[in-house]
């Protein structure tokens, strides 16, 4: 398994290096879909040069990165391209090993449920085999590395790539079962932008389940949660004290969200990210990794300055759920929406900012359409997942009372 992964890595690095050397690099690094004011590389350079001038980078409103980024790039500023290529490679490797272990867990669980006769008799074609799951980790790494969104983010040197790496390592360490390391990576990811905090809940659920603790037992949950929570708090506190400034997360409340609208009070949009965590936890407590996938997608849709880098992270998980493909209802339409919107973004931006013939309504509309596409895609996957679960427990070939083929509806 190592050789194909290495090959994929080599291809990905080559593509990125070629783009770095071309004239497109500068053009891409200023695209508003790829970089946001919170993740732009130009602002990192600006912050570092402010530090050289003896001015605090946080005294102005240009630099919104964390002090850890300053420490990281203070020494590595000349090797920035290499750093971003390495972060992408690390993300892909982390996801590869995470999914590899996850597949083993899935297979083990499936075997357990089969032995306990939890499945209906005629669902043989829904049972997953190791043979079909063999290439999934490689596909995940491929999906992440060769996704145009990821390549654009890397070439633009958006710090979103670093956030993706931290989240990927969080997933890896959670699946491996180490609470301490997963708390550290989650703390680092939350330190950079507040939204990964919501991933605490699926992480906790997963860790409880791997330790064979019943999530319904309050005492056990409490102890495990305490452990993770305290590690999280400790690390966040350490970061705060050492670096002197917590992340600039209060800023999204003040700045208008560029993509989802110019409404000054975006607080209620900000709440959307956190709002779905508890209901999803209740519904998906048996499937924490799927919950994590949905949560990452919700973050990518509702965060205040979303970029294509966030979208790329959850898109990397699609091969993990490719057994749901037969239950997806609108996949063709949604793929077309995503592709067409991605192509129209630069066109309408150019028309507003450079040609002056369109106005901001056009750009805003296309971002809305893109978000609607993403929302429907995620809910489609959610629907397919729930439907498969239903079939597994109730049987695949269902008949109605009068013998005709049954129609399943949500009621």
């Amino acid at each position, binding site marked *: 398994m190592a050789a194909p992964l290495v090959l994929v890595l080599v291809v990905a690095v080559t593509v990125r290096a070629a783009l770095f050397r071309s004239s497109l690099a500068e053009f891409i690094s200023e695209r508003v879909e790829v970089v946001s004011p919170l993740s732009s590389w130009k602002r990192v350079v600006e912050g570092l040069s402010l530090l050289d001038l003896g001015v605090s980078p946080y005294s102005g409103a240009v630099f919104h990165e964390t002090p850890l980024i300053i420490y990281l790039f203070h020494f590595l500023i000349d090797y920035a391209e290499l750093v971003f290529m390495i972060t992408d490679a690390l993300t892909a490797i982390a996801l590869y090993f995470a999914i590899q272990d996850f597949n083993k867990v899935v297979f083990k669980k499936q075997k357990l449920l089969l032995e306990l006769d939890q499945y209906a008799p005629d669902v043989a074609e829904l049972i997953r085999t190791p043979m079909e799951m063999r290439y999934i980790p490689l596909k995940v790494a491929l999906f992440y590395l060769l996704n145009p969104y990821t390549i654009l983010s890397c070439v633009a040197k958006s710090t979103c790539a670093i956030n993706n790496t931290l989240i990927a390592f969080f997933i890896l360490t959670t699946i491996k079962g180490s609470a301490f390391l997963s708390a550290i990576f989650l703390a680092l990811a939350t330190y950079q932008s507040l939204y990964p905090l919501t991933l605490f809940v699926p992480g906790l659920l997963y860790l409880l389940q791997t330790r064979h603790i019943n999530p319904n037992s309050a005492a056990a949950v409490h102890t495990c949660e305490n452990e993770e929570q305290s590690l999280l708090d400790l690390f966040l506190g350490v970061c705060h004290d050492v670096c002197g400034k917590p992340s600039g997360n209060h800023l999204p409340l003040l700045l208008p969200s560029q993509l989802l609208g110019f409404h000054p009070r975006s607080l209620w949009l900000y709440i959307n990210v956190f709002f779905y965590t508890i209901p999803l936890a209740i519904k998906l407590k048996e499937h924490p990794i799927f919950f994590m996938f949905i949560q990452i997608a919700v973050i990518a849709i509702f965060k205040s300055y979303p970029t294509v880098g966030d979208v790329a992270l959850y898109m990397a998980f699609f091969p993990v759920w490719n057994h749901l493909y037969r239950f997806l209802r609108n996949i063709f339409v949604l793929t077309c929406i995503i592709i067409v919107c991605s192509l129209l973004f630069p066109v309408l931006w150019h028309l507003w900012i450079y040609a002056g013939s369109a106005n901001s*309504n056009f750009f805003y509309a296309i971002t809305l359409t893109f978000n609607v596409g993403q929302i*429907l895609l995620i809910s489609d996957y959610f629907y397919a997942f729930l439907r498969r679960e239903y079939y597994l427990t109730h049987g695949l070939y269902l008949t109605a009372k009068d013998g*005709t083929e049954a129609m399943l509806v949500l009621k």
Partner: protein
Amino acid sequence: MAAAMPLALLVLLLLGPGGWCLAEPPRDSLREELVITPLPSGDVAATFQFRTRWDSELQREGVSHYRLFPKALGQLISKYSLRELHLSFTQGFWRTRYWGPPFLQAPSVWINLGRSSVMSSQGSSAPLSTSSTPPTQSLPLPPSNPWVWPMTLTTTFCAMLCCRGRWSAPKTSPPGRSSCPVVPRASLISFHLLQAGLSVLLKADRLFHTSYHSQAVHIRPVCRNARCTSISWELRQTLSVVFDAFITGQGKKDWSLFRMFSRTLTEPCPLASESRVYVDITTYNQDNETLEVHPPPTTTYQDVILGTRKTYAIYDLLDTAMINNSRNLNIQLKWKRPPENEAPPVPFLHAQRYVSGYGLQKGELSTLLYNTHPYRAFPVLLLDTVPWYLRLYVHTLTITSKGKENKPSYIHYQPAQDRLQPHLLEMLIQLPANSVTKVSIQFERALLKWTEYTPDPNHGFYVSPSVLSALVPSMVAAKPVDWEESPLFNSLFPVSDGSNYFVRLYTEPLLVNLPTPDFSMPYNVICLTCTVVAVCYGSFYNLLTRTFHIEEPRTGGLAKRLANLIRRARGVPPL
């Protein structure tokens, strides 16, 4: 598009709200003068200065006897413990390249407010002034809200001062001095004037049809003696006007007071201790071959002004012989021989500023500094105040002279905070001799909140001019001036070292466009974003709260039974 420019400050002077009290008031004196300078390009510049000097310590004792010094300003100074006040209103742009350096420079279209805090006990008011301010005694703290006292100026000058943002303090100024960043387009209301002395000439409708006019008020404390044991307060009210000779003179370069101001001088101001008119007759030599000045001057004054030797004809209004014979004084200048069309002499320092780039996302701000001295290099202090919505990237700052990179000797940068304070960039740049230095910095245009756009957002937003301060080498060495004896225009920035003179230039203000959203957007955004969020919420709610059920085909239904009834009647098989 001249806004109505008032001369309300002169009203305050001349109406003189104080009474004639019985107790001995502190001595005050008023000097007024008018300097008429023909500019190299053919235009005529007229500079009025009214100086009131009051031997009183405003801040220490409770003063209530105001005579010549305006009560409104005096109370302002004592209440807010101001050390200095400089306020100027300007319309038009002083073209340094063609007109040469002016005596009194003020930024175009802006209001320049300066105020020093009382907490500093060192530092003199103007960098080159020969007077020094005394050490402060215990004085009340300035108000915590820095906007209280400028608002009183609003009523005093009938001006709308709308300054958003905090005060910025340039590092090179004395500690405690702060200046208002940008006050675009203050609109002023006109006032009526009493006419006496030189202010007779200040007729508003003539003054509006000028290429440039600027009024200023400067209040500062000056020492009464060499040891500076006591201070007096000096109020200078100035007005600079540039008349376009071809419009006023109907094509000829001759000018006269009547043609320019449509009034003549009739009598001196009774309150003034000195009232004079100076006419620059330097370039056009004394042998009376090229020009003729009428009435012929009785005395002339020669001095080194702004680095060159100049000659002025003096007309003293207090000299009874001057006005006696004709009851009015109309100074005229006639050209006997048309002047040769020679290229105007280029000043040693002039500057230009522009914005480059295309599109509404980013741009580049460039300043060109010209040093035309053939062999002397001198440093220039460049101060840029850029509003917060043009986000400067200081890592893109490049300074090049003669094609090579020029590193500034000193750089101070204070980044902007959104909606609170603008960018402040201050640099000391060495300009090599006979060179052009380009200072450029890239910026990104920010999107404002929809309530922050002006009623005409596509007009653009103004960027205040950058300030260049320099000690320019003079061509002729100057002697240090005697404060009381020299004319007023020579003592505003007196020189201590005769080999150079102080010049403060302002570049052009700029107009930049920001990405403007469509103003129907708030409604659209609310509706459509709510719709999208509702779509998401609806889908998730369905999936989270409902479970799958097999749909049983419905047996009954009223419509179906009715249909079956009709079908049975027709003899057709039922549904």
